[in-house]
């Protein structure tokens, strides 16, 4: 054995040309793909599962709608008919899956991404000391960091992009325009599972997790802290969300409801002298007895897109800030 060491060294100088060939992925990209193997697989499996689920929801809804149309049971007026009601009831299963399982799951996805992908990403490198292994290589630590973040970042972008698109499509085609269309877009589990919200929130949670992991340097505390901060951030944004876009302010006939699918922010009555009193104040008093009309402040369903864009822009700015801090803190 020891002889091999000695005599085998004769050819060592020529070893540079003897590198294994046919490697498709090289350098840092290979390392980051290898390091993110579990993350990439998990995201891929998640996308496939949710996509299959959504496809099933779509096909099942279409099937029920087809049956209803053929039997003349499509319109709500016919549903008092027992036979039509029986034909309608299979729609409940796909609708239940969408509204009660997929929407909450997609709502929770950014938090899970922050906790399980973002927080451990650097925390584990510090906790296991492998950051020092990386620092001992010839590559610049910031270049490594860029690659280390780009691969999961793009994977999260792609996965949540696909999920958000499919969720929005099924929502639009089968829920909103379905026979029992009722799922106002601004609801707690509806809004975050629509449009650009899942993508923007996931990227933000990922970046926040990475930053927390770099600051805390221990995996479990970083995961807990990231989860708490994402939840707090969600609460704050939800509180501020009505003001991301100008409200519609209307005076309507007394006690008239706000439009279907809109988001009512505040309402009250207009008194004879033209002054406005919020409904909350009127309750159980005689103060509002002389009201002449109602006033409502709300976001119509059409405000969904601009509000989501403003929110996404805000989150992406915060994401960029978090990443800038992470890069600055990584000594070159």
């Amino acid at each position, binding site marked *: 054995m020891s002889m091999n*060491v000695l005599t085998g060294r004769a050819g060592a100088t020529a070893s540079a040309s003897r590198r294994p060939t046919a490697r498709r992925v090289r350098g840092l990209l290979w*390392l980051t793909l290898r390091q993110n193997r579990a993350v990439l697989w998990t995201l891929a499996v998640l996308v496939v599962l949710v996509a299959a689920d959504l496809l099933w929801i779509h096909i099942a809804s279409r099937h029920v709608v087809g049956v209803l149309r053929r039997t003349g049971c499509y319109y709500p007026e016919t549903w008092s008919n027992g036979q039509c009601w029986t034909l309608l009831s299979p729609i409940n299963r796909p609708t239940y899956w969408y509204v009660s399982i997929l929407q909450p799951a997609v709502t929770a996805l950014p938090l899970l991404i922050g906790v399980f992908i973002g927080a451990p990403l650097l925390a584990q490198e510090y906790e296991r000391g492998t950051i*020092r292994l990386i620092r001992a290589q010839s590559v610049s630590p910031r270049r490594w960091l860029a690659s280390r973040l780009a691969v999961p970042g793009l994977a999260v972008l792609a996965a949540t992009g696909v999920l958000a698109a499919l969720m929005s499509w099924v929502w639009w085609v089968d829920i909103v325009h379905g026979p029992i269309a009722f799922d106002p877009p601004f609801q707690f589990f509806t809004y975050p599972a629509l449009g650009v919200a899942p993508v923007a929130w996931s990227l933000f949670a990922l970046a926040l997790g990475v930053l927390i992991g770099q600051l805390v340097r221990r995996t479990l505390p970083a995961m807990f802290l990231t989860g708490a901060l994402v939840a707090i951030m969600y609460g704050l944004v939800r509180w501020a969300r009505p003001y991301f876009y100008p409200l519609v302010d209307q005076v309507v006939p007394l006690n008239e409801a706000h439009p279907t699918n809109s988001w009512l922010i505040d309402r009250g009555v207009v008194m004879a002298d033209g002054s406005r009193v919020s409904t909350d104040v009127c309750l159980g008093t005689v103060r509002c007895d002389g009201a002449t009309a109602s006033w409502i402040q709300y976001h119509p369903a059409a405000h969904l897109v601009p509000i989501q864009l403003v929110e996404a822009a805000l989150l992406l700015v915060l994401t960029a800030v978090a990443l800038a801090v992470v890069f600055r803190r990584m000594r070159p």
Partner: protein
Amino acid sequence: MDDPTTVPPALEAVGLGKQYRGDWALRDCDFAVPAGRICGVVGPNGAGKSTLLGLAARLLAPTEGELRVLGEPATAPELRARVAYVAQDKPLYPGFTVAETLRLGSELNPAWDDEMAQQIVEQGELKQRARIGSLSGGQRTRVSLALALGKRPDLLLLDEPMADLDPLARHQLMGTLMAEAAERGTTIVLSSHILPELDGVIDFLLLVQRGRIRLAGDLEDILDGHQLLTGPAEAAGADALPAEVLVEQRVGGRRATALVRTGEPLDGPWEGGRPGLEDLLLGYLRAPAATGPGTTPGEATPMNDEVAA
């Protein structure tokens, strides 16, 4: 091996200091390790050995002073490819296989010598497909050293490299390190608190104690400049030996032994001899730092002379 006037020192510290949360881990360090040497960084646990190596490996930024590595400021990006470092805890990715870990080395280092790295791993009879997390401490050390040597560095920084190894592996890997130094003139700086591990291996010494450099210089010169004296116990009085040369003395039974920092014969009933590496280090490590050089400006001078020599 090269002309010392043209080759810059592998490590050169001027007033180097590192502070952690108010405590100085290392302070007022002035030394130069010439290129091509095998330098032992010795001292008790917590003396600052790892801090010194961490500074050289640019894991840490100095709080004060300057450290030059291979003639460049320690922060120079060119040094990344020229300096290899193995940390004391031998960090590796536990989920990677041995083969993947070596591939990491090949992908991230332009001068990678795969044959060299593979031989070190094969010498330890490690399976290519074994997960790092399933290896013993000694096997992980072997993989870490394969990663460092495969990089073909000009300066190899090893923090307690042999601590986890069995005697066979220790001998093999030390032989491999020495062969690398012989063939390429690689400077090796290794820290250890296992003194026999360094005997016959190092030719340059940095003795670190309580964050200060107490001895720095060519090992032969340092040993020539010291004597290990033995004499009757009565000879070991408080002022029997001149305080400015006495490093440490002990009385055991009827005999007294003393380590003195001079090559010149001394008066008194002493029999002297050149100390071995271990005698020297133990003498300094046993002596309280207050009696050694480096604590007062006047006494620090001989140490600086050794650096210049």
